[in-house]
Protein backbone atom coordinates (compact mmCIF):
# COMPACT_ATOMS: atom_id res chain seq x y z
CA UNK A 1 0.00 0.00 0.00
CA UNK A 2 1.27 3.39 -0.83
CA UNK A 3 -0.16 6.45 0.86
CA UNK A 4 0.23 9.12 -1.77
CA UNK A 5 -0.17 12.51 -0.26
CA UNK A 6 -0.54 16.08 -1.19
CA UNK A 7 0.41 19.23 0.44
CA UNK A 8 0.54 22.72 -0.71
CA UNK A 9 3.36 25.09 -0.24
CA UNK A 10 1.84 28.49 0.11
CA UNK A 11 3.27 31.87 -0.66
CA UNK A 12 5.61 31.88 2.30
CA UNK A 13 6.92 28.48 1.32
CA UNK A 14 5.96 27.01 4.66
CA UNK A 15 4.04 23.78 4.86
CA UNK A 16 0.37 24.74 4.86
CA UNK A 17 -0.42 24.10 8.52
CA UNK A 18 -3.59 22.21 7.69
CA UNK A 19 -1.57 19.89 5.45
CA UNK A 20 0.62 18.83 8.36
CA UNK A 21 -2.39 16.89 9.55
CA UNK A 22 -2.50 15.14 6.18
CA UNK A 23 1.20 14.27 6.37
CA UNK A 24 0.74 13.00 9.92
CA UNK A 25 -2.27 10.86 9.00
CA UNK A 26 -0.49 9.35 6.00
CA UNK A 27 2.50 8.46 8.18
CA UNK A 28 0.25 6.91 10.81
CA UNK A 29 -1.51 4.79 8.21
CA UNK A 30 1.80 3.65 6.73
CA UNK A 31 3.20 2.89 10.18
CA UNK A 32 0.12 0.99 11.30
CA UNK A 33 0.17 -1.20 8.24
CA UNK A 34 3.66 -2.57 7.98
CA UNK A 35 6.45 -0.08 8.29
CA UNK A 36 7.51 2.83 6.24
CA UNK A 37 10.90 1.76 4.90
CA UNK A 38 12.29 2.72 1.54
CA UNK A 39 11.06 0.20 -0.99
CA UNK A 40 8.72 -1.30 1.59
CA UNK A 41 5.06 -1.96 0.99
CA UNK A 42 3.86 1.18 2.68
CA UNK A 43 5.47 4.34 1.53
CA UNK A 44 4.40 7.94 1.71
CA UNK A 45 5.10 10.27 -1.18
CA UNK A 46 4.64 14.00 -0.82
CA UNK A 47 3.24 15.73 -3.89
CA UNK A 48 3.19 19.47 -4.03
CA UNK A 49 2.63 22.06 -6.68
CA UNK A 50 4.29 25.40 -6.10
CA UNK A 51 7.31 27.59 -6.74
CA UNK A 52 10.79 26.12 -6.28
CA UNK A 53 11.15 27.67 -2.89
CA UNK A 54 8.39 25.27 -1.84
CA UNK A 55 11.19 22.72 -1.59
CA UNK A 56 11.62 23.82 2.03
CA UNK A 57 8.05 22.95 2.88
CA UNK A 58 8.36 19.61 1.14
CA UNK A 59 11.57 18.97 3.06
CA UNK A 60 9.66 19.47 6.29
CA UNK A 61 7.23 16.71 5.33
CA UNK A 62 10.20 14.48 4.50
CA UNK A 63 11.74 15.21 7.88
CA UNK A 64 8.47 14.17 9.52
CA UNK A 65 8.99 10.79 7.87
CA UNK A 66 7.68 10.76 4.29
CA UNK A 67 9.81 8.68 1.92
CA UNK A 68 10.11 10.84 -1.16
CA UNK A 69 8.55 13.81 -2.87
CA UNK A 70 7.46 15.23 -6.17
CA UNK A 71 7.35 18.99 -6.63
CA UNK A 72 5.63 20.33 -9.70
CA UNK A 73 7.13 23.69 -10.35
CA UNK A 74 6.59 25.74 -13.46
CA UNK A 75 6.18 29.48 -14.11
CA UNK A 76 3.15 28.53 -16.23
CA UNK A 77 1.46 27.43 -13.00
CA UNK A 78 1.80 30.79 -11.27
CA UNK A 79 -1.68 31.87 -10.19
CA UNK A 80 -3.20 28.54 -11.23
CA UNK A 81 -6.89 28.29 -10.34
CA UNK A 82 -8.53 25.29 -8.68
CA UNK A 83 -9.26 23.55 -11.99
CA UNK A 84 -5.70 23.86 -13.23
CA UNK A 85 -4.31 22.82 -9.83
CA UNK A 86 -6.54 19.75 -9.63
CA UNK A 87 -5.83 18.76 -13.25
CA UNK A 88 -2.08 19.00 -12.74
CA UNK A 89 -2.06 17.13 -9.42
CA UNK A 90 -4.33 14.43 -10.88
CA UNK A 91 -1.99 13.93 -13.81
CA UNK A 92 0.93 13.33 -11.45
CA UNK A 93 -1.06 11.05 -9.16
CA UNK A 94 -2.30 8.88 -12.02
CA UNK A 95 1.26 8.21 -13.19
CA UNK A 96 1.97 6.30 -10.00
CA UNK A 97 0.23 3.45 -8.23
CA UNK A 98 -1.24 5.05 -5.12
CA UNK A 99 -4.02 3.52 -3.05
CA UNK A 100 -4.86 6.61 -1.07
CA UNK A 101 -4.27 10.30 -1.62
CA UNK A 102 -4.57 12.37 1.54
CA UNK A 103 -5.12 16.13 1.41
CA UNK A 104 -5.82 18.87 3.89
CA UNK A 105 -9.37 20.22 3.86
CA UNK A 106 -8.31 23.63 2.75
CA UNK A 107 -5.24 25.53 1.73
CA UNK A 108 -4.41 28.48 3.98
CA UNK A 109 -4.05 30.77 1.00
CA UNK A 110 -6.85 29.75 -1.36
CA UNK A 111 -9.20 28.32 1.32
CA UNK A 112 -11.50 26.84 -1.28
CA UNK A 113 -11.85 23.28 0.03
CA UNK A 114 -12.51 22.05 -3.49
CA UNK A 115 -9.26 20.57 -4.76
CA UNK A 116 -9.68 17.11 -3.11
CA UNK A 117 -13.22 16.70 -4.52
CA UNK A 118 -12.01 17.82 -7.95
CA UNK A 119 -9.14 15.33 -7.93
CA UNK A 120 -11.54 12.56 -6.96
CA UNK A 121 -13.82 13.51 -9.86
CA UNK A 122 -10.94 13.72 -12.32
CA UNK A 123 -9.37 10.41 -11.34
CA UNK A 124 -12.70 8.64 -10.91
CA UNK A 125 -11.61 7.62 -7.41
CA UNK A 126 -13.84 7.48 -4.34
CA UNK A 127 -14.21 10.73 -2.40
CA UNK A 128 -13.76 10.52 1.39
CA UNK A 129 -13.44 14.14 2.49
CA UNK A 130 -13.66 16.18 5.71
CA UNK A 131 -12.49 13.19 7.73
CA UNK A 132 -12.09 13.47 11.48
CA UNK A 133 -11.17 9.77 11.60
CA UNK A 134 -9.70 7.44 8.98
CA UNK A 135 -9.46 3.65 9.17
CA UNK A 136 -7.73 1.58 6.54
CA UNK A 137 -8.15 -2.14 5.99
CA UNK A 138 -5.39 -3.07 3.51
CA UNK A 139 -6.44 -6.70 3.09
CA UNK A 140 -9.98 -5.68 2.07
CA UNK A 141 -8.58 -2.63 0.23
CA UNK A 142 -11.10 -0.56 2.12
CA UNK A 143 -11.03 2.89 3.75
CA UNK A 144 -13.65 4.15 6.20
CA UNK A 145 -13.94 7.70 7.46
CA UNK A 146 -16.06 9.82 9.75
CA UNK A 147 -17.03 12.96 7.85
CA UNK A 148 -17.71 16.03 9.95
CA UNK A 149 -19.29 19.13 8.36
CA UNK A 150 -22.00 21.63 9.25
CA UNK A 151 -24.48 19.13 7.80
CA UNK A 152 -23.69 16.63 10.56
CA UNK A 153 -21.64 13.48 10.97
CA UNK A 154 -21.52 10.73 8.33
CA UNK A 155 -19.79 7.37 8.26
CA UNK A 156 -18.51 6.67 4.73
CA UNK A 157 -16.70 3.67 3.24
CA UNK A 158 -15.01 3.04 -0.09
CA UNK A 159 -12.60 0.72 -1.85
CA UNK A 160 -9.09 1.77 -2.91
CA UNK A 161 -8.14 3.97 -4.60
CA UNK A 162 -9.60 6.94 -2.80
CA UNK A 163 -9.03 10.63 -2.13
CA UNK A 164 -9.23 11.55 1.55
CA UNK A 165 -9.15 15.01 3.08
CA UNK A 166 -8.63 15.46 6.80
CA UNK A 167 -9.87 18.13 9.22
CA UNK A 168 -7.49 19.62 11.76
CA UNK A 169 -8.99 17.76 14.70
CA UNK A 170 -7.87 14.40 13.38
CA UNK A 171 -4.44 14.16 15.00
CA UNK A 172 -1.54 16.01 16.56
CA UNK A 173 1.20 16.39 13.90
CA UNK A 174 4.64 15.26 15.10
CA UNK A 175 7.63 17.55 15.24
CA UNK A 176 10.48 16.39 13.01
CA UNK A 177 13.19 14.75 15.11
CA UNK A 178 16.87 15.58 14.66
CA UNK A 179 17.30 12.17 13.07
CA UNK A 180 14.36 12.88 10.78
CA UNK A 181 15.80 16.21 9.72
CA UNK A 182 19.16 14.61 8.91
CA UNK A 183 17.51 11.75 7.04
CA UNK A 184 15.37 14.17 5.00
CA UNK A 185 18.52 15.74 3.59
CA UNK A 186 19.26 12.50 1.76
CA UNK A 187 15.76 11.92 0.42
CA UNK A 188 14.90 12.66 -3.19
CA UNK A 189 12.66 15.49 -4.30
CA UNK A 190 11.77 15.03 -7.93
CA UNK A 191 11.13 18.41 -9.51
CA UNK A 192 9.07 18.37 -12.68
CA UNK A 193 7.55 20.95 -14.99
CA UNK A 194 3.99 21.18 -16.27
CA UNK A 195 4.67 19.55 -19.64
CA UNK A 196 6.14 16.43 -18.04
CA UNK A 197 2.99 15.86 -15.96
CA UNK A 198 0.93 15.39 -19.11
CA UNK A 199 -1.90 17.48 -17.62
CA UNK A 200 -4.51 18.43 -20.17
CA UNK A 201 -5.26 22.05 -19.23
CA UNK A 202 -2.75 24.76 -19.62
CA UNK A 203 -4.62 27.89 -18.64
CA UNK A 204 -6.77 28.94 -15.73
CA UNK A 205 -10.48 29.32 -16.31
CA UNK A 206 -11.11 31.83 -13.61
CA UNK A 207 -9.13 34.95 -13.03
CA UNK A 208 -8.74 37.50 -10.30
CA UNK A 209 -9.32 40.89 -11.91
CA UNK A 210 -8.27 43.12 -9.06
CA UNK A 211 -7.54 43.02 -5.36
CA UNK A 212 -7.57 45.83 -2.84
CA UNK A 213 -7.18 45.99 0.91
CA UNK A 214 -10.50 46.65 2.58
CA UNK A 215 -10.69 50.01 4.26
CA UNK A 216 -9.74 49.54 7.92
CA UNK A 217 -12.70 49.49 10.28
CA UNK A 218 -13.36 52.88 11.78
CA UNK A 219 -12.15 52.96 15.36
CA UNK A 220 -14.94 52.11 17.74
CA UNK A 221 -15.83 53.18 21.24
CA UNK A 222 -14.38 51.20 24.12
CA UNK A 223 -15.73 51.78 27.62
CA UNK A 224 -14.71 50.30 30.95
CA UNK A 225 -17.47 48.60 32.90
CA UNK A 226 -18.29 50.48 36.08
CA UNK A 227 -21.55 48.63 36.64
CA UNK A 228 -23.33 50.39 33.77
CA UNK A 229 -21.49 48.57 30.95
CA UNK A 230 -24.46 46.29 30.19
CA UNK A 231 -26.89 49.22 29.95
CA UNK A 232 -24.54 51.26 27.79
CA UNK A 233 -24.11 48.24 25.52
CA UNK A 234 -27.90 48.06 25.05
CA UNK A 235 -28.01 51.82 24.37
CA UNK A 236 -25.42 51.29 21.63
CA UNK A 237 -27.52 48.50 20.06
CA UNK A 238 -30.62 50.68 20.13
CA UNK A 239 -28.77 53.63 18.62
CA UNK A 240 -27.54 51.37 15.78
CA UNK A 241 -31.13 50.09 15.36
CA UNK A 242 -29.95 46.55 16.06
CA UNK A 243 -32.81 46.00 18.50
Amino acid at each position, binding site marked *: MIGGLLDRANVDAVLNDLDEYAVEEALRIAETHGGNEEGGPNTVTVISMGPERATEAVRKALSMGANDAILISDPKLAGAD*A*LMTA*ETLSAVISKNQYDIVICGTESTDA*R*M*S*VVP*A*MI*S*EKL*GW*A*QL*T*FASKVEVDPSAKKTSITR*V*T*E*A*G*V*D*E*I*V*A*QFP*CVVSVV*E*KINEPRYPSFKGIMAAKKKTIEICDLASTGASVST*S*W*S*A*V*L*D*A*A*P*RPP*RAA*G*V*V*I*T*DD*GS*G*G*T*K*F*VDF*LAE*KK*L*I
Partner: protein
Amino acid sequence: MSNVLILADFVDGKATKSTVEIATAGARIGEVSAVVMAPIGQGAALSATLTQGPITKILIIESDDFAKHGVAAVADALSHVANQSKPDAVLLVSHAFGKEVAGRVAMKIQAGIITDAVDVAADCYTTQLVFGGSTTVHSKVSQGISIITVRPNTITADFIAATPAIENVSVQISENAKKSTITSSQPPVKGGRPELTEANIVVSGGRGTNGDFAAVENFADSLGAAVGASRAATDAGWYPHSHQVGQTGKTVSPQLYVACGISGAIQHRAGMQTSKTIVVINKDPEAPLFELADFGVVGDLFAVLPPATEGVKARKA
Protein backbone atom coordinates in the same frame (compact mmCIF):
# COMPACT_ATOMS: atom_id res chain seq x y z
CA MET B 1 -32.26 35.08 -22.47
CA SER B 2 -29.57 33.98 -20.08
CA ASN B 3 -30.38 31.13 -17.78
CA VAL B 4 -29.01 30.12 -14.42
CA LEU B 5 -29.15 26.90 -12.43
CA ILE B 6 -29.16 26.96 -8.66
CA LEU B 7 -28.84 23.93 -6.43
CA ALA B 8 -31.64 24.28 -3.88
CA ASP B 9 -30.42 23.87 -0.32
CA PHE B 10 -32.58 22.21 2.35
CA VAL B 11 -32.28 21.79 6.09
CA ASP B 12 -34.80 19.61 7.94
CA GLY B 13 -36.81 19.22 4.75
CA LYS B 14 -37.21 22.98 4.22
CA ALA B 15 -35.60 25.28 1.67
CA THR B 16 -33.11 27.54 3.45
CA LYS B 17 -32.81 31.30 3.37
CA SER B 18 -29.51 30.73 1.53
CA THR B 19 -31.51 29.19 -1.31
CA VAL B 20 -33.45 32.45 -1.66
CA GLU B 21 -30.16 34.35 -1.58
CA ILE B 22 -28.61 32.37 -4.44
CA ALA B 23 -31.86 32.67 -6.40
CA THR B 24 -31.66 36.44 -5.88
CA ALA B 25 -28.06 36.51 -7.13
CA GLY B 26 -28.99 34.24 -10.03
CA ALA B 27 -31.89 36.45 -11.13
CA ARG B 28 -29.43 39.28 -11.77
CA ILE B 29 -27.83 37.08 -14.43
CA GLY B 30 -30.84 35.41 -16.00
CA GLU B 31 -33.87 33.21 -15.52
CA VAL B 32 -33.44 30.96 -12.50
CA SER B 33 -34.13 27.22 -12.50
CA ALA B 34 -33.79 25.63 -9.07
CA VAL B 35 -32.64 22.02 -9.06
CA VAL B 36 -34.16 19.94 -6.27
CA MET B 37 -32.37 16.66 -5.56
CA ALA B 38 -34.66 14.48 -3.49
CA PRO B 39 -35.03 10.92 -2.23
CA ILE B 40 -37.54 8.94 -4.28
CA GLY B 41 -41.06 10.13 -3.55
CA GLN B 42 -40.05 13.34 -1.78
CA GLY B 43 -39.41 15.75 -4.65
CA ALA B 44 -42.83 17.35 -4.57
CA ALA B 45 -42.80 17.86 -0.80
CA LEU B 46 -39.35 19.46 -0.83
CA SER B 47 -40.21 21.66 -3.81
CA ALA B 48 -43.33 22.86 -2.03
CA THR B 49 -41.10 24.56 0.55
CA LEU B 50 -39.49 26.69 -2.18
CA THR B 51 -42.13 29.36 -1.83
CA GLN B 52 -39.96 32.46 -2.02
CA GLY B 53 -37.40 33.98 -4.33
CA PRO B 54 -37.16 34.85 -8.03
CA ILE B 55 -37.41 31.24 -9.24
CA THR B 56 -38.93 30.58 -12.67
CA LYS B 57 -38.65 26.83 -12.80
CA ILE B 58 -38.05 23.89 -10.49
CA LEU B 59 -36.33 20.81 -11.83
CA ILE B 60 -36.94 17.79 -9.60
CA ILE B 61 -34.53 14.88 -9.72
CA GLU B 62 -35.41 11.94 -7.50
CA SER B 63 -32.90 9.27 -6.58
CA ASP B 64 -31.94 7.37 -3.46
CA ASP B 65 -28.32 7.61 -4.60
CA PHE B 66 -28.11 11.18 -3.25
CA ALA B 67 -28.43 10.07 0.36
CA LYS B 68 -26.34 6.97 -0.26
CA HIS B 69 -23.44 8.46 -2.21
CA GLY B 70 -23.56 12.13 -1.21
CA VAL B 71 -21.50 14.82 -2.96
CA ALA B 72 -20.41 12.73 -5.94
CA ALA B 73 -23.96 11.64 -6.84
CA VAL B 74 -25.41 15.14 -6.50
CA ALA B 75 -22.57 16.56 -8.62
CA ASP B 76 -23.15 13.88 -11.24
CA ALA B 77 -26.84 14.77 -11.56
CA LEU B 78 -26.19 18.51 -11.54
CA SER B 79 -23.55 18.15 -14.28
CA HIS B 80 -26.09 16.23 -16.31
CA VAL B 81 -28.64 19.07 -16.02
CA ALA B 82 -25.94 21.66 -16.78
CA ASN B 83 -24.92 19.79 -19.92
CA GLN B 84 -28.55 19.76 -21.07
CA SER B 85 -29.57 23.31 -20.26
CA LYS B 86 -26.25 25.07 -20.98
CA PRO B 87 -26.71 27.74 -18.31
CA ASP B 88 -24.57 30.88 -18.09
CA ALA B 89 -23.96 30.17 -14.44
CA VAL B 90 -24.52 27.54 -11.77
CA LEU B 91 -24.93 28.92 -8.25
CA LEU B 92 -24.62 26.96 -5.04
CA VAL B 93 -24.45 27.73 -1.33
CA SER B 94 -20.90 28.06 0.00
CA HIS B 95 -20.82 25.37 2.66
CA ALA B 96 -18.68 22.22 2.63
CA PHE B 97 -21.25 20.27 0.61
CA GLY B 98 -22.03 23.06 -1.87
CA LYS B 99 -18.37 23.80 -2.52
CA GLU B 100 -17.49 20.16 -3.11
CA VAL B 101 -20.43 19.67 -5.46
CA ALA B 102 -19.35 22.84 -7.30
CA GLY B 103 -15.77 21.55 -7.59
CA ARG B 104 -16.84 18.22 -9.04
CA VAL B 105 -19.26 19.86 -11.49
CA ALA B 106 -16.53 22.29 -12.60
CA MET B 107 -14.17 19.39 -13.23
CA LYS B 108 -16.79 17.30 -14.98
CA ILE B 109 -18.07 19.96 -17.36
CA GLN B 110 -14.69 21.76 -17.50
CA ALA B 111 -15.83 25.12 -16.24
CA GLY B 112 -14.24 27.80 -14.08
CA ILE B 113 -15.14 27.87 -10.40
CA ILE B 114 -15.28 30.72 -7.91
CA THR B 115 -16.00 29.96 -4.26
CA ASP B 116 -17.16 32.09 -1.33
CA ALA B 117 -18.51 34.99 -3.37
CA VAL B 118 -20.06 37.71 -1.22
CA ASP B 119 -21.58 39.42 -4.24
CA VAL B 120 -22.42 38.48 -7.81
CA ALA B 121 -23.17 40.96 -10.61
CA ALA B 122 -25.25 40.53 -13.78
CA ASP B 123 -22.18 39.68 -15.86
CA CYS B 124 -21.07 37.02 -13.33
CA TYR B 125 -18.44 39.40 -11.97
CA THR B 126 -17.97 38.29 -8.37
CA THR B 127 -16.66 39.85 -5.18
CA GLN B 128 -14.76 37.81 -2.62
CA LEU B 129 -13.10 38.67 0.67
CA VAL B 130 -9.77 36.95 1.18
CA PHE B 131 -6.98 36.73 3.74
CA GLY B 132 -9.35 36.64 6.67
CA GLY B 133 -11.55 39.35 5.22
CA SER B 134 -8.78 41.94 4.96
CA THR B 135 -8.76 42.15 1.16
CA THR B 136 -11.51 42.55 -1.43
CA VAL B 137 -11.01 40.66 -4.67
CA HIS B 138 -13.02 40.75 -7.89
CA SER B 139 -12.95 37.65 -10.07
CA LYS B 140 -14.61 36.30 -13.13
CA VAL B 141 -14.67 33.04 -15.00
CA SER B 142 -12.89 33.71 -18.27
CA GLN B 143 -14.78 31.34 -20.54
CA GLY B 144 -17.82 29.09 -20.56
CA ILE B 145 -20.15 28.47 -17.64
CA SER B 146 -19.42 30.20 -14.33
CA ILE B 147 -19.72 27.92 -11.30
CA ILE B 148 -20.09 30.15 -8.26
CA THR B 149 -20.65 29.36 -4.60
CA VAL B 150 -22.16 32.19 -2.57
CA ARG B 151 -21.51 32.70 1.11
CA PRO B 152 -24.67 32.67 3.24
CA ASN B 153 -25.95 35.97 4.60
CA THR B 154 -24.01 38.18 2.22
CA ILE B 155 -26.64 38.86 -0.44
CA THR B 156 -29.91 40.48 0.56
CA ALA B 157 -32.55 37.90 -0.30
CA ASP B 158 -35.50 38.90 -2.47
CA PHE B 159 -38.40 37.20 -0.72
CA ILE B 160 -40.97 37.66 -3.50
CA ALA B 161 -43.47 34.83 -3.82
CA ALA B 162 -42.24 32.11 -6.15
CA THR B 163 -44.65 30.55 -8.64
CA PRO B 164 -42.35 28.28 -10.59
CA ALA B 165 -43.21 25.78 -13.27
CA ILE B 166 -42.33 22.26 -12.13
CA GLU B 167 -40.56 19.72 -14.25
CA ASN B 168 -39.38 16.20 -13.38
CA VAL B 169 -36.05 15.18 -14.78
CA SER B 170 -34.71 11.67 -14.71
CA VAL B 171 -31.01 11.12 -14.44
CA GLN B 172 -28.99 7.93 -14.37
CA ILE B 173 -26.24 8.33 -11.76
CA SER B 174 -22.94 7.09 -13.17
CA GLU B 175 -20.98 4.27 -11.52
CA ASN B 176 -18.08 6.65 -10.88
CA ALA B 177 -20.29 8.70 -8.61
CA LYS B 178 -21.17 5.68 -6.46
CA LYS B 179 -17.68 4.79 -5.32
CA SER B 180 -18.14 5.89 -1.75
CA THR B 181 -21.10 4.82 0.34
CA ILE B 182 -22.59 6.62 3.32
CA THR B 183 -23.40 3.95 5.90
CA SER B 184 -24.84 6.24 8.55
CA SER B 185 -25.77 9.89 8.88
CA GLN B 186 -26.42 12.00 11.93
CA PRO B 187 -27.81 15.49 11.50
CA PRO B 188 -26.28 18.15 13.75
CA VAL B 189 -27.94 18.60 17.11
CA LYS B 190 -30.01 21.74 16.88
CA GLY B 191 -31.52 23.79 19.59
CA GLY B 192 -34.30 26.21 18.85
CA ARG B 193 -31.80 28.87 17.78
CA PRO B 194 -31.16 30.12 14.25
CA GLU B 195 -28.48 28.53 12.10
CA LEU B 196 -25.11 30.15 12.73
CA THR B 197 -24.26 31.11 9.14
CA GLU B 198 -27.76 32.44 8.46
CA ALA B 199 -28.36 34.37 11.66
CA ASN B 200 -28.61 38.16 11.70
CA ILE B 201 -27.02 38.24 15.12
CA VAL B 202 -24.36 35.90 16.54
CA VAL B 203 -23.26 35.92 20.18
CA SER B 204 -20.08 33.93 20.79
CA GLY B 205 -18.30 32.77 23.91
CA GLY B 206 -14.65 31.83 24.40
CA ARG B 207 -12.31 30.65 27.11
CA GLY B 208 -13.50 33.58 29.21
CA THR B 209 -16.81 31.78 29.83
CA ASN B 210 -14.85 29.22 31.78
CA GLY B 211 -17.26 26.59 30.51
CA ASP B 212 -20.43 28.37 31.57
CA PHE B 213 -22.34 29.39 28.45
CA ALA B 214 -25.59 30.27 30.27
CA ALA B 215 -24.95 34.04 30.27
CA VAL B 216 -24.01 33.93 26.55
CA GLU B 217 -27.07 31.82 25.68
CA ASN B 218 -29.48 33.96 27.69
CA PHE B 219 -28.23 37.09 25.99
CA ALA B 220 -28.41 35.40 22.57
CA ASP B 221 -31.99 34.34 23.26
CA SER B 222 -33.03 37.85 24.23
CA LEU B 223 -31.96 38.94 20.73
CA GLY B 224 -33.10 35.80 18.86
CA ALA B 225 -29.43 35.23 18.01
CA ALA B 226 -27.34 32.18 17.14
CA VAL B 227 -24.60 31.09 19.55
CA GLY B 228 -21.01 30.70 18.41
CA ALA B 229 -17.81 29.67 20.16
CA SER B 230 -14.06 30.04 19.86
CA ARG B 231 -11.93 26.99 19.35
CA ALA B 232 -10.72 27.19 22.94
CA ALA B 233 -14.35 26.63 23.98
CA THR B 234 -15.09 23.83 21.49
CA ASP B 235 -11.79 22.05 22.20
CA ALA B 236 -12.58 22.09 25.91
CA GLY B 237 -15.90 20.43 25.10
CA TRP B 238 -17.89 23.40 26.44
CA TYR B 239 -19.75 23.85 23.18
CA PRO B 240 -20.30 21.60 20.12
CA HIS B 241 -17.72 21.83 17.35
CA SER B 242 -20.47 22.69 14.87
CA HIS B 243 -20.68 26.11 16.59
CA GLN B 244 -17.01 27.00 16.17
CA VAL B 245 -16.37 30.29 14.40
CA GLY B 246 -13.08 30.78 12.59
CA GLN B 247 -10.60 29.47 10.12
CA THR B 248 -11.38 25.84 10.86
CA GLY B 249 -14.95 26.51 11.91
CA LYS B 250 -17.66 28.54 10.26
CA THR B 251 -17.43 31.90 8.58
CA VAL B 252 -20.20 34.21 9.67
CA SER B 253 -21.11 37.69 8.51
CA PRO B 254 -24.09 38.77 10.58
CA GLN B 255 -25.40 42.30 11.13
CA LEU B 256 -24.10 42.04 14.69
CA TYR B 257 -21.37 39.84 16.19
CA VAL B 258 -20.89 39.90 19.96
CA ALA B 259 -17.67 38.26 21.22
CA CYS B 260 -17.61 37.45 24.93
CA GLY B 261 -14.36 36.33 26.56
CA ILE B 262 -12.61 35.83 23.22
CA SER B 263 -9.12 37.25 22.79
CA GLY B 264 -9.14 37.65 19.00
CA ALA B 265 -6.61 35.21 17.54
CA ILE B 266 -6.12 35.54 13.78
CA GLN B 267 -7.85 32.17 13.25
CA HIS B 268 -10.94 33.39 15.08
CA ARG B 269 -10.97 36.71 13.22
CA ALA B 270 -10.90 34.86 9.90
CA GLY B 271 -14.41 33.62 10.66
CA MET B 272 -16.07 36.84 11.87
CA GLN B 273 -14.14 39.80 10.52
CA THR B 274 -16.74 40.63 7.88
CA SER B 275 -19.57 41.06 10.40
CA LYS B 276 -21.23 44.44 9.93
CA THR B 277 -21.08 45.53 13.57
CA ILE B 278 -18.75 43.97 16.12
CA VAL B 279 -19.08 44.22 19.90
CA VAL B 280 -16.36 42.89 22.21
CA ILE B 281 -16.67 42.14 25.91
CA ASN B 282 -13.38 41.21 27.54
CA LYS B 283 -11.84 41.93 30.93
CA ASP B 284 -8.41 42.48 29.38
CA PRO B 285 -8.19 45.96 27.80
CA GLU B 286 -5.24 44.69 25.72
CA ALA B 287 -7.26 41.90 24.05
CA PRO B 288 -6.52 42.19 20.30
CA LEU B 289 -10.16 41.79 19.30
CA PHE B 290 -10.85 45.33 20.60
CA GLU B 291 -9.08 46.49 17.41
CA LEU B 292 -12.10 45.32 15.42
CA ALA B 293 -14.74 46.51 17.87
CA ASP B 294 -17.34 49.10 16.96
CA PHE B 295 -18.25 48.97 20.61
CA GLY B 296 -16.19 47.42 23.37
CA VAL B 297 -16.72 46.87 27.05
CA VAL B 298 -13.69 46.21 29.22
CA GLY B 299 -15.26 44.10 31.93
CA ASP B 300 -16.32 40.71 33.21
CA LEU B 301 -18.79 39.08 30.85
CA PHE B 302 -20.69 37.65 33.82
CA ALA B 303 -21.25 41.19 35.10
CA VAL B 304 -22.01 42.81 31.71
CA LEU B 305 -24.27 40.25 30.03
CA PRO B 306 -27.07 39.80 32.64
CA PRO B 307 -28.04 43.51 32.80
CA ALA B 308 -27.68 43.70 29.01
CA THR B 309 -30.07 40.74 28.67
CA GLU B 310 -32.59 42.48 30.95
CA GLY B 311 -32.10 45.72 29.03
CA VAL B 312 -32.84 44.07 25.68
CA LYS B 313 -35.93 42.33 27.08
CA ALA B 314 -37.18 45.62 28.53
CA ARG B 315 -36.82 47.42 25.20
CA LYS B 316 -38.53 44.62 23.31
CA ALA B 317 -41.44 44.41 25.77
